[in-house]
């Protein structure tokens, strides 16, 4: 296992151009002429895919990101492959996690040994007592199922009411901002700025049959009200007459979950966001948490939107103390 990880690390460095010419030649000779050449080629292709996946998720360090861009985004084919990686990452995260998969940290080993010892003690219990215990367990399970169903229904209703309340508030604030003098600051209640990247609502029209949206399988969170999630990279402003990225929402507006991939520099201190709809500032928020700050990072913002052009400004401090401003823009069309 350790050797496999070392191989992967070397392949990763090879693909990012961090090896010497001699080291690269050795790896290539093994891949194209060695006895396990085909297997090594497959391993290299697999690590390449993982790099694309990490880039799409904003998980690369600033140096890795710069190297990746130089080597993989310099061709149409490379860009298409990275686009596919982003789609696959979104789809994988929207799907329910397997019961034994790890979302964050792996569970501690001692929890397994507790289960093993419980099962052992049940085996040695007298039959009558076993029957009584089984009946109690069934009754408790029935009560638990009823309670979970009822709780889920109540949570869904509460979430729906909350969504409608927030949308109404957002519309009211937007209208108020339109009447307010220029430069007036609107403050929104902090909501949706996640501590870590939340599961997204896929913008695809209907979920795949056997791959359900993540929210449906996760009882811990209320259903996301977002119309769509939208990943924005820095400098989304395009040159040469190309328009900004566009998103369609139903008439009357909707809500979008923005995943703002931070570029290069890991922001520190009080990170602020300002969102402008045209000339008007529609959102101002401070104290934002940056997910994965060691690798550039990611900021999640939930934003009610209606038709128009939007500019997002993220301001923070660089490690050297200088101020870093990152801009993103997008356009919203009403269906």
């Amino acid at each position, binding site marked *: 296992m350790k050797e496999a990880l070392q191989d992967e690390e070397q392949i990763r460095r090879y693909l990012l151009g961090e090896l010497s010419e001699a080291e690269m030649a050795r790896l290539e000779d093994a891949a194209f002429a060695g006895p396990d050449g085909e297997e090594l080629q497959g391993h290299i292709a697999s690590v390449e895919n993982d790099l694309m996946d990490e880039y799409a998720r904003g998980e690369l360090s600033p140096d890795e990101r710069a190297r990746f861009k130089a080597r993989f985004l310099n061709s149409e084919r490379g860009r298409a492959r990275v*686009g596919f990686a982003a*789609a*696959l990452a979104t789809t*994988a995260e929207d799907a329910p996690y397997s019961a034994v998969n790890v979302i964050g940290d792996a569970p501690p080993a001692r929890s397994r040994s507790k289960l093993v010892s419980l099962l052992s003690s049940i085996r040695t219990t007298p039959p009558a007592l076993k029957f009584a215990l089984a009946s109690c367990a069934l009754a408790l399970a029935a009560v638990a199922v009823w309670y979970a169903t009822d709780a889920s229904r109540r949570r869904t209703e509460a979430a729906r009411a909350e969504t409608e309340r927030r949308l109404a508030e957002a519309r009211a604030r937007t209208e108020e901002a339109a009447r307010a003098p220029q430069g007036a600051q609107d403050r929104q209640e902090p909501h949706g700025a996640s501590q870590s990247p939340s599961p997204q609502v896929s913008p695809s029209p209907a979920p795949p049959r*056997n791959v359900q949206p993540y929210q449906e399988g996760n009882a811990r969170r209320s259903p996301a009200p977002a119309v769509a999630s939208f990943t924005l990279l820095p*400098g989304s402003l395009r040159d040469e007459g190309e328009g900004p990225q566009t998103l369609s929402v139903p008439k009357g507006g909707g809500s979008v979950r923005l995943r703002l991939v931070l570029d290069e520099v890991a922001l520190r201190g009080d990170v602020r966001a300002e969102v402008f709809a045209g000339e008007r500032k529609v959102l101002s928020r401070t104290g934002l948490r940056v997910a994965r700050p060691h690798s550039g990072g990611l900021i999640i913002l939930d934003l009610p939107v209606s038709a128009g052009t939007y500019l997002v400004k993220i301001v923070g401090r660089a490690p050297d103390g200088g101020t870093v401003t990152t801009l993103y823009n997008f356009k919203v069309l009403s269906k």
Partner: protein
Amino acid sequence: MKGTGTLNQAGFDRLLAALDDDREAAGRKYEVLRANLIRFFGWRGDGAPEEHADETLDRVARKFAAGAEGREEIHDLTGYCIGVARLLLHEVYREQAKRQKALRELPTQEVSAAADETEARLECLRRALEGLPPSDRELIVQYYQGERSAKIENRRRLAERRKVSAGTLRMQALRLRQGLEASVAKCLESIGPGG
């Protein structure tokens, strides 16, 4: 960089003969060789891997046409071609440095596709996933779930559940992903620009 020129027929024939006595088998080996060269250039971050793979084979064929293969005693044709490819790559780097455009300074475009294209790609991927058997669909989705450190642990558990080695799981996921990429590319082409 020297011009590519037209692939010399005599040289090409001698190159094929060096790959295999049977012309059809030689043709298949030629395609494998070309695919390996494309991989090589791609791994090295070259922006035009197919073009440079063809240029490499063209140069090797010209050497064969000149009868060089007898004089140089080429024992390992693949290794020889990779050597020619490395020299070509260094020429490419030198020319780019001369034009004051090192690879890092080449305009790199962020993947900031329009939302329409992103939606189309997601829809194509959804369709491609639906076309997979449930077991394969589950494998490819779970293989790419989780952040970096969690992903390593998830894959270990996935291999355990499926009772395969990590290497086998990796190859299974790689084949599935390559199939999905090809399906999505075809689907996007059929949709056309503008969704």
